[in-house]
């Protein structure tokens, strides 16, 4: 104890001893079972072309997970850029549509204004004035209007014994029609 105080008695903080095994040899492994090739499968023959014989070089092994990550990242960037481009295009087209819509609205307004101006030039009052003062016309009165009664439809008129459209006439007229059609 330091200075006689339990506060400085570090032995009080010492726990029971724990044995830590020393590492010496590699851990024991279970032997791998022998693999048989599946039915139909053949072992790939090992090719060794004489002309291409090379001395064995040092092989760099790229883990497959990294490859996947790279591919995925590239795909993601490509997609992102694609989306950005499409958005930009969308924005441009939307703006174009707005501008064209605005022009349509202006044109529609002008159409109304011009139609109103045109109609006012062709008002009944102006037509009357032009017809009577410039052209010297007068309005028709009732006696100048002839009414034709169409309520009874077409009639076949008979004249004596001969009727309009009897067999001979019909045949002759049909032949004439056919001749006219062909030539």
């Amino acid at each position, binding site marked *: 104890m330091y200075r006689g105080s339990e506060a400085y008695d570090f032995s009080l903080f010492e726990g029971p001893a724990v044995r830590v095994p020393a590492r010496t040899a590699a851990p024991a492994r279970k032997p791998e079972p022998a693999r048989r090739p599946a039915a139909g499968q053949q072992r790939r023959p090992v090719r060794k072309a004489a002309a291409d014989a090379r001395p064995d070089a040092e092989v760099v092994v790229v883990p497959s997970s990294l490859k996947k990550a790279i591919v995925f990242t590239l795909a993601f960037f490509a997609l992102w850029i694609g989306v950005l481009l499409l*958005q930009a295009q969308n924005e441009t087209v939307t703006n174009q549509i707005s501008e064209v819509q605005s022009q349509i609205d202006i044109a529609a307004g002008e*159409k109304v204004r011009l139609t109103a101006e045109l109609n006012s030039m062709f008002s009944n009052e102006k037509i009357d004035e032009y017809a009577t003062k410039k052209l010297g016309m007068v309005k028709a009165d009732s006696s100048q209007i002839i009414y034709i009664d169409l309520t009874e439809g077409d009639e076949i008129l008979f004249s004596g014994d001969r009727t309009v459209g009897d067999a001979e006439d019909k045949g002759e007229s049909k032949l004439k029609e056919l001749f006219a059609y062909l030539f």
Partner: protein
Amino acid sequence: MAKTNKNIKKRALILTAVLLLVGFGGNLVRLFQLQIIDSADYKAKAEAQQLSDTVISADRGTIYDCNMNILAESASAWLVFVDPSRIENAAQSQLIADGLGAILKKPNAKKIASILKANKDYQYAKIAGQVEYNEKTAIQKFIDDNDLYGIVAIDPDTKRYYPYSNFASTVIGFTGSDNTGRAGLELQYNESLTGISGRIITAKKANADLMDSNYQSKFDAQQGLSHVLTIDKNIQHLLESALTEARAENKATACYGIVMQVKTGAILGMATLPDYDLNQPTVIKNKETLAELDKITDPDEYDAAYNAETFNMWRNKCISDTYEPGSVFKVVTTCAVVEENVLPADFTYTCTGSIQVADNIIGCAVRDGHGTEDLQHGLMNSCNPFFITIGQKLGAEKFYKYFEAFGLTEKTGIDLPGEAEPKAGVTYHPLDDLGIAELSSSAFGQTFQVSAIQLITAISCVANGGKLMKPYIVAKELDQKGNVVYEAEPTVRRQVVSEKTADTVIGYMEHVVAEGTGRNAYIPGCRIAGKTGTSEKLTTDGEYVASFCGTAPANDPEIAVLVVIDEPHGDNRLGGAIAAPVAGSVIEQVLNYLNIEPMYTDEELAEMNAETPDVLGKSVSEAEDILAAGDFTARVVGDGDKVLTQYPAKGQSVPTGGVVVLYTEEGAGDTTAAMPTLTGLSVSEANSAAVNAGFNLKVSGTATGEGLVAYKQSIAPGTKTRLGTTVTVYFKTTTGVNDN
């Protein structure tokens, strides 16, 4: 020791807890206040900050006539405003005033300068609305050239166009600068015409710029409904032309008229004169009104008077004004008497020229009296003592029953604003007030008032077999795709009199036109049934109202026409003399337009036109004989023996006894002559004058009766006209048409 540690720990915990409680508690309370109590406010603030809200104004619906001719249509326009607070100096202010004034013209530069001065501390001062595209483009250029961005700006606006200016102005009405209806149909149907505005809500960025369209929600505007009227543009024009002529001829204060389809109550035409230009509704153009206003010297008084006249100008007198109907009302009394079978079949009354009613003596229009009359002749002669007598026989109760049944104590319900409301004791006598004097005067159409729409509806009821219809003016409402969302159906209010009574009275009315006071409305073949009216205005001393209400064709009435001439100051003020010819002319033209074939009596046919025979190639003497046999007059031009050309050509319709010009040499003589003056002449005088000058005369209107005088001719005097041309001359009489 351990106990001390425990205490310390405990105190530390308590202190920590207190600190935590105080610290976070305050936050919790504040959070509760912000997120629960004041959440609505903060949500609104956040929305205002984060969202942009743009209103898409809905297009106002279009107004069409029954044939889909556009009578009122809206289009995009622009509003020009200025931010005066950003004007740098007086020079810039003057530049803006001069520039905008030069482009807009109205307001002018001086007015714009005063607007800028008055609003110099404000950020918004409206300069002009409803600016059209050309002006807007010029203003935009002005802004660009003078770098006035943020000072002068342009906003969207709308403008209402009325292509035909003052056509049916008191019916259509107009809109104000805020695009809301102020009068007429524009006011009555303002809600359905306006539609519902849309919105575009867009998210804003931190710098208050708008996000792109992906962050936008659009709510389309619901366009206003278009309205198709029962008004026919052509019939309206016929009515307006006739009233314009009548007003000028009779120097009347006002003229108004209605054309109604009797079987449905549809209004085919409604006009009030003087009228106004719908594109400039606050501008008075009537010369007489302006002349009266110019007499006022005080500017404030002038402004007040100008405003009052403007309101008067907008007034649709056909529905808003009431007047004493006069003798036209005798039709209602006649219907009541016939329906109630009050008079025996052989009833007659001898008019001696006056009648005593209580303490008063009421005179007849004919001082010596009409003599003995039955009901038909009483109506034909428009005899006041006769109607006082039958009114008394009918009695107050029955009289009032029919007065009410014909709709004269209530509004007609027409879909126009400002219809005059009848008031008992003010515009008409209630039953309790119908003493002998009131009953007697009411029986012949005096001492009470009705509106023109009420009167024509009542007369149309008689023409419609006794069925009282509700008049209407909007036939259909269409959405922006043209689909019909509403269609008006004719409404029968009630059966007032039996069909038999109605037919009987229509027969009497036809005699009024054929032989009675309405003879100036007579048109061969049209079979007009009508009644004249001349009433004294109780509200204005010495002024009269002349009117005529007729329906045609009498055998199967299609239309009714009412013409009212208010305060005529011409040579005559009788309804039979000045209103009847106008109504007759309108009825004839409307029937022709509607292709309703005239039906001529044998007498009419005998006086009708004859067809010119073919005399081409004949010798002059032969041709003259042929023409004489057909009762034509030959006029030979040239010295040749044979007829080379005839005018009118063969088969043309000319009045019986007309002239056929025979040309016997090529290029022989002048083939034209100056049309003589035929107005003011009698029928025979006019015929002689026309034939002697080488023209054919066609008589329009009544051709029989005393005192016929020509008042209008279809070809103006002095006009170089081809020989043989038919000139139509209109005749009317002032004899036997007094119904006062």
